[in-house]
């Protein structure tokens, strides 16, 4: 075609492409009032949100909520920082790391009151002590020959703090686990093998002691091979290195936009109602999770939900032995999701462990050193939500006394 016509066509196409780029940014997420980014794949770990959605709690407060699953390489902190989602679920250590890097993320509700990270070992196998590695013997039993595993991604700080604390340990490295308990299925010469593997109390630990599809016993074809008798558990809360995990967080930039503070309070109101219901009715929660699109089998979800409920209802002041024995005191329903901002409380302990173990450089290090609990947390929205739910706001001092 003629030169002039060709030039005109190219100009028209460039303009069309540029305009379409603008159109893309315009239709980002206008359909939903709140978009929440989960930390992992949709399962019992987030049962409160699925329950709230299933039982219509979000509709009650007039919010259209979209629950976005995490997993794989999704970074929930980056999603909130970028503004592609409104609210996220993350571990407090990741929030601290992001803020040390210059972000302005704000912790608004602490759903899991205590850490659910276990270190599990097979009693007596591969030179481990007959009782496995426990809170009582780790100082001497956690030698350099013990292969410790964790997934990484910011979930390793509690384990690293423990390795630092163990007197008999000089090797601070660990094996990178995948997201199954495959490290328990392989032999000692395998690169993925772990003596002491990381597992969440509500997920991977159950994969070690149960028999249904997807568990270690099922994959090995030996039902009951590993059970509560021959698997030892090291609870992070028992050894003083526990860091807070699942919390709800937003960015200050998002909060500053008009209307978002009200939306957040309403979202918290409905979500806390969902979490309270799920924690008190764990078997019913399984159905709500499946409605929301689960990725695990119903049997696993049924085992998971009561364990998740324990993390929501018991503070770190309660011993794991008491929880196991059933003699532990749960927090009042009104206190679900509270952020423990007391001096010496869980948030302060998490921040202190972060300062001791992150070992950053440059401005990241100075920001972390100067960080205070009040920089991370804004309790106003949780307080307003609880007031809307129950008419009165309980105080943080109503939580069980610190050890």
């Amino acid at each position, binding site marked *: 075609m003629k030169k002039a016509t060709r030039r005109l066509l190219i100009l028209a196409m460039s303009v069309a492409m540029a305009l379409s780029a603008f159109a893309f940014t315009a239709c980002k997420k206008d359909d939903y009032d709140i978009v929440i980014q989960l930390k992992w794949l949709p399962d019992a770990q987030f049962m409160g949100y699925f329950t709230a959605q299933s039982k219509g709690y979000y509709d009650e407060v007039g919010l259209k909520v979209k629950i976005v699953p995490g997993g794989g390489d999704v970074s929930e902190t980056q999603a909130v920082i970028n503004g592609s989602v409104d609210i996220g679920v993350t571990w407090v250590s990741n929030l601290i790391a992001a803020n040390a*890097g210059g*972000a302005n993320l704000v912790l608004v509700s602490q759903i899991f009151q205590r850490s659910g990270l276990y270190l599990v070992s097979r009693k007596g196998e591969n030179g481990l002590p007959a009782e496995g590695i426990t809170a009582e013997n780790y100082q001497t039993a956690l030698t350099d020959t013990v292969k410790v595993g964790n997934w990484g*991604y*910011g979930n390793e700080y509690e384990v690293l703090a423990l390795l630092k604390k163990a007197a008999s340990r000089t090797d601070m490295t660990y094996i*990178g686990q995948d997201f199954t308990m495959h490290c328990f299925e392989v032999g000692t010469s395998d*690169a993925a093998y772990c003596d002491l593997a990381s597992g969440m109390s509500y997920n991977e630990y159950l994969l070690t002691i149960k028999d249904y599809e997807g568990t270690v016993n099922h994959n090995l074809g030996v039902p009951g091979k590993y059970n509560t008798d021959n698997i030892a558990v090291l609870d992070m809360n028992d050894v003083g290195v526990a860091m807070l995990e699942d919390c709800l967080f937003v960015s200050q930039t998002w909060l500053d936009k008009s209307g978002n503070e009200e939306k957040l309070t309403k979202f918290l109101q409905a979500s806390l109602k969902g979490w309270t219901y799920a924690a008190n009715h764990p078997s019913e929660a399984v159905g709500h999770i499946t409605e929301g699109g689960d990725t695990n089998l119903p049997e696993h979800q049924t085992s998971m939900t009561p364990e998740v409920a324990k993390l929501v209802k018991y503070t770190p002041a309660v011993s794991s032995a008491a929880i196991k024995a059933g003699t532990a005191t749960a927090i009042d329903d009104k206190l679900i999701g509270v952020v423990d901002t007391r001096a010496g409380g869980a948030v302060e302990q998490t921040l202190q462990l972060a300062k001791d173990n992150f070992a950053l*450089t440059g401005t*990241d290090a100075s920001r972390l050193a100067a960080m205070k609990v009040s920089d991370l947390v804004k309790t106003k929205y949780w307080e307003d939500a609880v007031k809307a739910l129950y008419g009165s706001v309980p105080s943080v001092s109503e939580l069980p006394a610190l050890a």
Partner: protein
Amino acid sequence: MKLEMKSKKLKNGMLTVLLPVLFGVFLLLLWRFKALHALLGLNESQLPYLENIWVFIKNGGDGTARITVNVKSTLAVVFLGLIIGSLLGYFVAVIAALFPKSKGVLTVLAAFNAIPVVALAPIMGRWFPQSAQVAKVAIAAILCLVPMSVNAYRGLTELKPYSQDLLKSYAASKTQIFLKLKLPNSVPHIFTALKLCVVSAMIGAIIGEYYISGPMIGIGKVIRNDLKGGRLTSGWSHVLIATLIGALLYAAVLLFEKYTVRAVNAVKTRMTERTVGKRTNG
């Protein structure tokens, strides 16, 4: 006349190297003075400032990632994979050139290339469970083997017209034809393949570190770990380091190629002078 051409060649050569380097420096300056942040609407927690990355690198890393340990591990995988893959690839090409009936092997190998590396990585992890390092080397080797075998085969079989017939007329044996004609002919093709191999080995090593369970060591492991865990300074520092290593390795191959070509040409000129006699206007 000769001097003018030489200086022009030099100027062209310098520009070929200088301009890309200047562009790289320009990008780094944009980053350093936060112009990139302004242009793309980013803040510090999405793209760390370059001075923080510099402090990180100067310190050799921080408590979560030591740079030298990780770089050593990745480089070991890259070099081993490169050497093993290239040697095996060349060997396969030689077999295919000597026994024309086995040419199909190259097609099968090319099919291996179609497997996305993110799928290849976990497979190699399962095939070599004893050592994550071996599995990573296997990935890098496979990614090197394919381009090397295809290119070397072309070098061994695509000869100048009638050159093979010329040697046959001199009663050259098959071995002599192979060593004196086919092998030197394949050298430029080896370098074409090496340029691909070096980059593929780097990619293979890093992706392997992403997906293979094992010791938490290697640039890919650190990048994946940090970018998801919110430690952007460490993550981006390792991204920059990986980029730099890739560029340096590629430049090394280019230099090696230039040196080899110059040496081969010098030998050729000497051989021509010996047979034809010294030129009259040297």
